[in-house]
């Protein structure tokens, strides 16, 4: 790997404890290799993810934000991801209005057994963010 493409972008992920965080663990246990850009924040449920966390991250310096929860109908708290789905969809549609590329934010569902799917999600999302390039310049951030 050359120094060039070693340059990482800031990607943050909010994962629900029961499914997606477990899925990421499963991926680890199975040694499914992934790009290293992503940093994971563990939350109990995707329903806990306040759209403002995503906004805060994007404005604050992240180049991409990923939210992942249990598959609909399979939520450990029965309804959490249903609320998440509506709120995050709303946010995804608001972002471009403010001039933020909606592709920088993705929400998806990964179950605790889907290590492979997790690997795919991380790999593809990281690839996409690298294609979009940094949201914030080296010196000044997008919102300064």
């Amino acid at each position, binding site marked *: 790997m050359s120094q060039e493409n070693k340059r990482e972008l800031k990607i943050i992920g909010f994962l629900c404890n029961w499914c997606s965080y477990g899925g990421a*663990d499963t991926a680890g246990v199975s040694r499914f290799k992934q790009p290293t850009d992503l940093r994971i924040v563990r939350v109990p449920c995707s329903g806990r993810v306040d759209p403002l966390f995503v906004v805060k991250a994007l404005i604050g310096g992240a180049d991409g934000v990923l939210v992942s929860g249990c598959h609909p109908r399979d939520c*450990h708290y029965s309804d959490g991801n249903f609320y998440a789905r509506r709120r995050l969809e709303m946010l995804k549609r608001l972002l471009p209005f403010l001039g933020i590329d909606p592709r920088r934010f993705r929400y998806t569902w990964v179950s605790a057994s889907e290590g492979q799917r997790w690997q795919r999600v991380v790999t593809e999302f990281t690839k996409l963010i690298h294609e979009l390039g940094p949201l914030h310049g080296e010196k000044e951030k997008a919102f300064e």
Partner: protein
Amino acid sequence: MRVGVFICHCGNNIAGTVDVQKVAEEMRKIPGVAYATTYMYTCSEPGQNEIIEAIKKYNLNRVVVAACSPRMHELTFRKTIEKAGLNRYFLEMANIREHISWVGDDRELNTKKAIDVVRMAIAKVMNNKPLYSSSFRVNKRVLVIGGGVAGMQAALDCADGGLEVVLVEKTQSIGGMMARLDKTFPTIDCSICILGPKMVDVAQHEKIKLYAYSEIEDVKGYIGNYQVTIRKKATYVDWKKCTGCGLCMEKCPSKNAYDYFNFGIAPTRAISIPFPQAIPKKAKIDPNYCRYLTKGKCGVCAKICPTKAIDYDMKDELVVEEVGAIIVATGYSLMGVENFPEYGGGRYADVITGIQYERILNASGPTAGHIKRPSDGKEPETVVFIACCGSRDKSLGIPYCSNFCCMYIAKQAILTKDHLPNSQSYVFYMDIRAPGKGYDEFTRRAQEEYGVKYIRGRVSKIYPKGDKLIVKGADTLLGVQAEVEADLVVLANAVISNPDAAKLAEKLRISYDTFGFYVESHPKLRPVETNTSGVFLAGACQGPKDIPASVSQGSAAASKVLSLFSKDMLESDPQVSYVNPNICVGCMKCVKTCPFGAIKEEELRDGRKVAKVIETVCAGCGICTSTCPCGAIQLQHFTDNQILAEVNAFVSGK
């Protein structure tokens, strides 16, 4: 704020691809970090002691352990720092193994990532508050769903342990699959002879309340306090009056009802008692076949019933039971033959399934234990068994092994020889899986003592020729085509999950895999627990299992419940939501969105209305926190500030 950071090598698991020393150095630079070190195995006893001593020596008041997944060891280290006198919630873990060292090869990048992740954990732990769990009463009653051998074992163990048990069975009688079997491997002892007494125990145990022919309608509540709604399905027979004399069954004119108990190997009556040892031994009317209920005239059973138990207007009935824990033992189903068109797909009467053959072998079955083939009642001379029908077959979406077919095939082949000394059995198999105690010896006996011919290879086709069935397959050991002229073919059809398994799982809020089997909390260390505390698993609902395994799981689940109920009070998880009444504006949006109805409106003395969380009901999902506009309601240990601290630590860090 004095944070201590402990970075684990985990042997080479972490240190192999992460420069742990460098991580420690970086952490020492962070203001508030009083101590940072690395250790070979932090979870080991010396490793934990290291933490305890460091806490004392450097009087640390917050601890970050960078090691494996918190799903693995969070509890371990919480206890550790508690030993050192810190509140257990002053711990945060940074997952640098599953999420870093195991998924990235680039040492430099891994180390960079680890530094970020630990920094985030530090940022969070600095915002942690001490939490104290309150305790609540446990309702020491247990619900067991499913009256198969696993469920019965669980129910009996709990009841003998002094607990009140509510046992719900979907069908008319308890006993499950085992009640249908003739003999059991590897001892060839009569199945019902060993199960019957257990069934009677269940029926007679004063602590067990049995709901037969009932299903779970709805589950509310949480560990220690569940409210379960049970649907008692209409049997059209008043079981208080029915004596099980069976007169109705003899007289019923509708003779072609599908016999679920015998898997349709022979018809039964519209009103029936499934088998002689049925518990409860009560009659039930099948509304799809009853002439009175379909055509409106007949009423024979009503006329001849000595106790006037028949009630054609009976309706389903809902009852609510309150329990403190739930054991799920709903068992399995079998793949339909229509999935095997190459084997006739149900067109040939003499191609039957293993469980159907069990019924033929069974003395209380439709043939009274005489082996007669369905088509013409002839005694078969050649019987062919085909293993793995559907199992281990990706094309049918079943990659897994059905676990016990190899064994029951061997058993049935042996029994065939016992019943018909002149018969010859063949077994087409992929591999023989006989890992249990005395199992492999058993399959060998089938071959060596009973002369069962085992042919390693798949069967490609079955077609009728005269009154015989030609079984065409490959013998992969000899590398030739094999053709057997059979009188009877028995398919070991795949074990699948119950069709309604997913629906029940959603009611119980437990997770299930792609095949509909319920997922245990840890494949090795927590095999009967689920991720929903208070709900346990037993038997084949978790995956294909034979009788011994199911029974031991039944007992295991029971022991889990008993130890859970050994305390009168349970500690509630303090990671629940808390409303700051000074901030709450009483818009009650949280009340609207809480999936558990855990938030109530409360009026303060000054007349202000604010939200209030019922701690024992709150499950800790945090939907309320992301709903509350003014941040008045905060999910403890996952507060906005804790999460924001993590976010900032990463995004603002260079």
